[in-house]
Structures are given as C-alpha cells and as structure tokens.
C-alpha cells in the first residue's frame, strides 16, 4: 500500500536516535553518585548488568515489533498475547512507569540547572522542596507545554542532540582514559558492595528505559523488518558500551570519594580532569564542567520529551482496546495533539516530582518497566507457542526459548532486590490495574488475548481450574456476539443468515462454532491428530462466506468434544456469546435424551440469550409475534424488529384477550415500546394455541418468547412443549432470555444463579417443567410430558 509507505518517514538513524535519546537521560548523569556510594567500583558492573537484562527484552521486543508494528508497543503485545487483564497491567505500568521516569529526568534536569545557579531549598507552604525539584517542576511544565502545543522538533535537531550527547560522553571518556589510574579501581569489590550489586542494578535500570519506545512508533519506521531490530538492539548495545566505559573511566580517573553520593558528580569530575589541561594559560576545567552540564541538560530534556510523547501513544493504544476511555485520546482541534492524554500524564509527572526523591522516582520507573518487560517476554512465548495465524515476524529471537525465558526471569528477579516499600507500591499499582480491568474495563473491552483463546480452545484437555480462571477474566465488552453452533450442513445457511442479520443490526460479530463429536473411546488429542479440525473447516468456511455477504465480522472456531450438546452451553460461555442461535429439529445437536437432569441444569442457567430455530425455510417476509408482555417478550420483539429492518419484512403482532379494546390498548403500547408501531395488530379471543395456529397460516415465520425458565430444557429433552409449534407450517423461532448471573457468580464459579426461581430450579426431572410457560401467558403446557 502506497499510503502506508508514505506514512513511514523514520530512517534507521532516526529510529536509533529515538532509542538512544530516550535512554541516555538522567540515569548516567545523576545516578553514578548513588551507585558508587553503594557498590563501589562494581557500579560499572551494575550498568553492564542492566544493559544485558535490557538486551534480552530488546530481542523479544524486536521480534514482536516486526510481527505487529502497531502503536502502543510493549502494552500492545502484552494485551494481544496475554489478554486484556495483563494488558491493563502492562498499560498502566508502562504509562505510570514513564511518568515516574519523566519525573526522575526532570529531577535530574533540576539538579543540573541548579549546579549552574545554585539555589537553596524552597519552602512552599507546608511542603519544603529542594531547589532541584522546583526547577524540575518548571522544566516539566515546559516539556508538557511543548507536547501539548505540538511544537515541532525537527528530526535533524534530534540527531544533533543525540550526537552531541554521545560526543560529550566520548570526549570525557578519552580525557578520563588519559588520566586513568587503574589502582583506584582497587579494591574492585570493597567489603559489603557485592550484595549491593543487584539492588543498585534495580535503581540504575531506569537508564535503560527507551528501547521499547522505538517499537511504539514502529508504524512510522521505513522498512521496519530491518530497521526496527537494528534500532532497538543497536541502541541498547551502544548505550551499554557508552555507560560501561564512562563509569570505568570515571572511577579510574577521579577519587571515588568525589563521586559517591554526589548527584552532579560527573560535572565535578570533568572540572577536575579537564583542569589538568590548559590552553594559552587558561585552565580547561570550566570548559569540561560546562560540557558535561550541557550534556546533562540535553539528556534529561530529550528523555522527558520523548517519554511524554510515548505515554500518549500508550494511552492511545489502551483507548483503542477500551481499557481506558477513548475520550482520553481526543485530538486538539487547533494543535492536533492528544492534549488530554498529555495533560493527564503531565499532571502525574508534577505530582510524582513533588512527592518523590531521586532514588524513589528512578526505582519506581525501573520496577514498573521491569514488570512490563517481564510480561513482554512472556507475550513472545505465548505468540510463538500458540501458533496464532498471521504471526510472522521478520526478525526472530535467536536461541528461542532460552532468550525470552531468561528475559522474563531476569526482569522479574531484579524486582526482588529492590527496596520493599517500592515493591509494595508497585504491587499496589498492579493490583489497581487488575481491579481496574475487572471492575471498569472488562465490560468494555471486546478483544481477547491469544492466551485466553488458546486455553478456551482446549478447554477439554486443560485443568478445569485453568479454564475456569481464563473464562472468568475474558472481556465481556459491548461487541454484540452472536454464536451459532453448527452441526448440520443443511441448516448452516439459514442459521448463519439469521445470526448475521441480527449481528448486523447490532453492529456485532458472528461466532460460528463447529462442535465436532468425538466418540468417547477416542481421546480429543487423537481426534485432533487425525484431522478432525480440517474436516470441520469446510462447514465453517461456508459459514464465513455466508456471514460475510452481510458485511459482519465473523469468527470461526472448532471445538472437539465428547458431549456435543452440553458443549453448546460451554461454548456460549467460552466465546462470550450475547445470543446463541441454534437449530432445533430431529436430532440437530445429538439431543441427549438420556441425561435429563444434566440438561435441566444446563438449560436452566442460560449463559446467553437463546434463539432456537425450527427450520421450515428461511423467509422473514411475514413475521408473526404473539405476545402477552413481560420482560421475556422483549427478546422476541427485538428479534422481530431486527428482522423487519434487515429484510424489510411485515410484522404482525398477536395478542389474545377477551376484552378487545383493552387488548388493543395493550398491544399498541407494547408495539410502541418495541419500536414496532408500524406492525399489523391482531387481537383474538379464545384459546391461545388455536389463535396462534390461525394467525400462523398467513405467516412465514413465528417468533415466540418464553416467559419462564426451563422452556428450552423441555424442548431439548424432546418434550412436546406446545403442540402448535409442531403443527404450524412456517418456521418457528423460540426465544429465551439469558440467566442474569451476578458478576460475583460469574467470577467465582457457578455457585449461585441470581435469576433462578428457588425451589423449582432445584427439583429434578419432569416436575421442573411446570415453570415452563409460553407466551401468550395462558399456560398451555401440561406438566409431565413423556420424554422420547
């Protein structure tokens, strides 16, 4: 596509500088003081260790980035692979992690500016702020404004900034080398420092945040298959080498005491080192210090600027999947920027800056990103193992699965060594993200993750607990999902047509499921090996084609099962169906005559609305809807309305009442409520079944609702529910509403069913039938029909 090509304007160098520019931030300029104080000369090693851990994740990020060049980067991959619950965790962690990191960059920025002007701490009412914090706040406001107004930074400028940064660090390193005294590196590990290595690595890891941000703009990179891995891996390697050399030289060339606990240590070091030289009698000390000061300012500014922009990308991706409200990503009419997202992130940065110190801000940034990186590596494993269609990365991680496993373990393991309070706060945020998903986002998110689908597709082989857990956290979003269990090729077309028409009206998705019967003697695994899946695909392909003629989204699944009929209910639950459209006829779904109580159990707690279609030809031109009101008739009314709109059919409403005027009044009102005011009204008196039978002679389709639970269970067991349904010549649609189980019940298993009438629900066998009544309300059903 030429349009896609036009949108790509980041070359390899630009992509590389995005990574380097974001990574080289306050970390290397501010943290050597802390690192050296705690780990001595091993501080250099902590930077290398951080780089190595980052490299594993960078490999995984490169593969995922080339496979899915989508806005949102790390968050997007985790969401896609592990599902929206982990997506919520990754999104929030990435977003807040960037805000913490930005606050840290701005703190560093403040330190550096203050090294120039030298202010004391400032009391602002009850809070006393360090000078660096005050300057940092001003700096943060500046960069928030730059992003809010969308001021243009040229690509050329960014390359110049990054090159000057690298140049400054290189000059420092060379000058340092000339003055290095390897003796000051000894003892390499003074007593008590080795145990500090991992905790310090946790703190300085903030210096490696940024390489994943490259994947977040993957859709803007030219030739991403090549340039994206190059930029991601290249920036990590370059930055690691630069940090390591810089630290070694710093430690070797100046006394450790000068560096330890000095937040602008590198400036003082430069003053000392460059002071050894003079030009025309002037000492170069000030020049060196000035250079490093400038470097610190450029580094912190570019990192903060890039992080604010990245966080708006994460917001965009989270909004796209409805984990946060898409309103957050509205574009400013004048500035063309996602101003709400930037303002919110900006507010977070300011709050964090006031609340935290250098170490806590950097560590929070590190921990939250380590969580994201750990999940990102897991996402790679899931994408590979699930063999999901369309996953075709240009770059593949070498030594799979060792690399992503080490990446996961090392990222999570590093968290352990971080200060307990920080871990506690981070896990509080993770818990918040999970609750956020369950309580807010779950009802809005539509797409599920690869992992969830993988588990649910194998619901028969995996431990019940895993399947149940996976089911409980599946998104229940506002996508209206119409599931069609298919078994019989002869009825496929009509069922799919019906389902598609409804899905189209609701702007929803058709989920065609072929439940293939596997004899008890054959294990599901063996059936899978024998290609039972392939056999089912013909039917599903036809279903897909039929549904696509309506222009609705289609999903197809094959489920292998020993219990075809029961599987319909499981599948409705598994695939998050809002409505299940199934056929009903002689033996359509292996009617399970033998296990009455099981069927009652199933059909008494319907996981979705059900439409059961008795196929005598699909012709919705003249639809008959008998009604006696009540909530259950809403479904039959709604279905009639949808079919009327889609196929331009005529609807006739039938009400049986002895008082004609009252009946007409009722029906007119009911019709208005269900948006069917243009329907023909038919009021009859006398026997309900006879009235339906008479009216059905003019109709092509009869839609009838169940007022009470249990109608379907009787139907499926083969009981005669209503003779008229057998007698009429037109097709019949039987509608029964879902059982409204509470969120609690859905989360914690099937213990309680809120809607089930107590008493009758628990009774077994034929007595349960008595609560099955049909509309119109006169119950024509006799209890205790014999089962076939």
């Amino acid at each position, binding site marked *: 596509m030429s349009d896609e090509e036009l949108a790509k*304007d980041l070359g390899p160098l630009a992509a590389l500088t*995005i990574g380097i520019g974001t990574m080289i931030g306050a970390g290397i300029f501010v943290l050597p003081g802390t690192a050296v104080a705690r780990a001595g000369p091993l501080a250099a090693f902590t930077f290398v260790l951080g780089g190595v851990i980052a490299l594993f994740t960078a490999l995984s990020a490169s593969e995922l980035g080339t496979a899915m060049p989508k806005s949102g980067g790390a968050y997007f991959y985790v969401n896609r692979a592990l599902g929206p619950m982990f997506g919520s965790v990754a999104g929030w962690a990435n977003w807040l992690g960037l805000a913490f990191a930005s606050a840290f960059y701005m703190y560093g920025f403040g330190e550096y500016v203050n090294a120039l002007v030298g202010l004391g701490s400032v009391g602002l009412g009850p809070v006393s702020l360090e000078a660096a914090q005050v300057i940092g706040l001003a700096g943060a406001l500046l960069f928030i404004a730059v992003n809010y107004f969308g001021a243009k930074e040229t690509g050329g400028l960014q390359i110049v900034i990054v090159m000057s940064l690298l140049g400054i660090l290189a000059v420092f390193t060379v000058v340092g080398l000339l003055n290095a005294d390897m003796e000051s590196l000894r003892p390499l590990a003074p007593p008590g420092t080795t145990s500090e290595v991992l905790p310090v690595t946790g703190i300085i890891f903030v210096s490696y945040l940024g390489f994943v941000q490259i994947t*977040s703009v993957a859709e803007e990179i030219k030739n991403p298959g090549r340039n994206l891995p190059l930029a991601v891996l290249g920036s990590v390697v370059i930055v690691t080498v630069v940090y390591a050399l810089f630290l070694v030289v710093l430690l070797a060339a100046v006394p450790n005491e000068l560096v330890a606990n000095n937040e602008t240590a590198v400036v003082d070091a430069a003053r000392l080192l460059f002071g050894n030289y003079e030009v025309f009698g002037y000492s170069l000390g000030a020049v060196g210090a000035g250079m490093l000061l400038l470097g610190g300012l450029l580094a912190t500014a570019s990192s903060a600027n890039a992080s604010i922009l990245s966080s708006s990308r994460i917001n965009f991706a989270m909004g796209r999947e409805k984990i946060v409200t898409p309103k957050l990503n509205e574009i400013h*009419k*004048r500035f*063309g920027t996602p101003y709400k997202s930037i303002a919110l992130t900006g507010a977070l940065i300011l709050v964090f800056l006031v609340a935290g110190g250098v170490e806590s801000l950097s560590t929070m940034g590190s921990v939250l990103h380590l969580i994201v990186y750990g999940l990102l590596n897991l996402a790679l494993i899931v994408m590979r193992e699930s063999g999901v269609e369309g996953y075709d990365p240009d770059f593949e991680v070498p030594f799979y699965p060792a690399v992503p496993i080490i990446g996961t373990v090392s990222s999570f393991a590093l968290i352990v060594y971080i200060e307990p309070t920080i871990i506690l706060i981070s896990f509080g945020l993770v818990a918040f993200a999970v609750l956020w998903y369950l309580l807010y986002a779950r009802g809005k998110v539509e797409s599920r993750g690869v992992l969830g689908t993988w588990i649910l597709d194998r619901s028969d082989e995996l431990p019940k607990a895993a399947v149940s857990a996976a089911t409980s956290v599946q998104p229940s979003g506002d996508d209206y999902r119409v599931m069609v269990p298919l078994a019989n090729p002869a009825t496929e077309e009509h069922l799919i047509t019906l389902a598609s028409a409804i899905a189209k009206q609701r702007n929803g998705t058709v989920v065609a499921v072929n439940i293939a019967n596997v004899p008890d003697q054959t294990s599901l695994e063996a059936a899978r090996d024998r290609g039972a899946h392939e056999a089912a695909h013909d039917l599903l392909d036809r279903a897909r084609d039929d549904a696509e003629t309506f222009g609705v989204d289609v999903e197809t699944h094959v489920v292998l099962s020993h219990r075809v009929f029961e599987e319909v209910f499981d599948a409705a639950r598994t695939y998050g169906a809002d409505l299940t459209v199934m056929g009903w006829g002689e033996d359509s779904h292996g009617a399970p005559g033998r296990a009455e109580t099981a069927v009652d159990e199933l059909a008494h707690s319907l996981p979705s609305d059900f439409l059961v279609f008795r196929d005598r030809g699909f012709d919705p031109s003249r639809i008959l809807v008998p009604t006696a009101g009540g909530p259950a008739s809403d479904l039959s009314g709604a279905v009639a309305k949808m079919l009327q709109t889609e196929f331009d059919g005529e609807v006739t409403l039938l009400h049986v009442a002895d008082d004609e005027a009252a009946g007409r009044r009722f029906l007119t009102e009911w019709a208005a409520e269900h948006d069917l005011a243009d329907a023909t009204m038919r009021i009859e008196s006398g026997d309900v079944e006879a009235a339906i039978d008479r009216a059905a002679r003019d109709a092509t389709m009869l839609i009838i609702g169940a007022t009470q639970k249990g109608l379907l269970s009787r139907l499926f067991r083969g009981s005669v529910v209503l003779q008229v349904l057998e007698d009429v010549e037109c097709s019949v649609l039987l509608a029964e509403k879902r059982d409204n189980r509470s969120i609690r019940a859905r989360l914690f298993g099937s213990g309680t069913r809120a809607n089930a009438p107590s008493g009758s629900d628990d009774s077994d066998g034929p007595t349960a039938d008595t609560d099955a009544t049909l509309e119109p309300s006169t119950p024509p059903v006799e209890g205790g029909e014999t089962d076939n």
Partner: protein
Amino acid sequence: MNSNDVFSALKRDYKLFCCPSDAERTFLTDEDMSARMTRTDQPDERDLLDHVLLPVAHEADALATARVLEPYDPEQVTALHVVEKGGGVPDKTPVEQSEELAADSYAAVRTVFPDADDHTAYDRDIVGAIFDAVDEVGASAIAYRSRDGNRLMQFLSGDLSIKLVTRSHVPVIALPREGATE
C-alpha cells in the same frame, strides 16, 4: 453584499491572480519558480470552481468548510487531509489515529458533497503538501477556511494562511467564517 458577485469578479481576474506580482516574486525561491513553470500546463479558460481542493483538518472543520462552500456549487470537490509527519521524530499522533481523523473528515465533507473525492498526503510541510496535491488531483483552486483566534493562538497552532496565499500557484479562496462579523 452578494458574495456571488465577488466570485464572478474573482473568476474574471483569474489570470491576474495567478501571476505573481513583482513584490511577491521576491518571496519566491528559485525552486518555487521552477515548480511554477512546470505547473502552468492547465488550460487557459478554466472555471475557478471546476475542481476545488478542500484542505480540512478535522471533522468539525471539514463540515463547516464544506457548508460554506456549498452555496457556490463547485463542479467537483476533492477533500484533502494532510497528515503532519514528524520528519525524523515521532508524529504528534499515531498514524492509525491520523488516518481515522482523515476518514472522519472525508465523511463529513461527503455529507455536503456526496461525490467528493478524497486525497491524503503525508508531509511535514503542510502547505507544500497542499500545493503538491493541487497538481496530483488537477485542482483549479484551493478553498480553505482560516482558523480563528488571536495572534498568539495562531502562532501556537501554526496558522498557515499567509504561506498558503502568498505561495500558491492556483487561486486560493478564503471562505468566510460562519458568524463572522462584517
């Protein structure tokens, strides 16, 4: 005042309009001039509203712009959305979102001009992209609606009016703002 009079006057003066004055010539770089030379292959007698290029920024802007153009009954309309590229740095908005914005804008234009074409350009230089689009679609004029707001807002949001009217090689029609005072 009847605005149709203004347009017929404009149409009459079309030739004058498209030739740069000496004063303006000094603003033009050699590149602009050579570009202009190659672009003068349009027929001499061309109606101003033959094919109007309508640069639009977002849905509301697109709708308002199309509505004020509607009374003049242009022959053909092409809606243009320029996705502002970073040119070496990440864009202000994700490409996906920018393209959604473009699609929404075109849909808004089509509520007024159902047959309108659309054209999406990707460029850092928005005005340059508009001029390129004129040639690509063969437009006879550019019609745009200037943004309101004081100078500071115009500066912050990068108002492009001056660049657009001074450098164009086809007529530029400044559409009136709704509710603008005389």
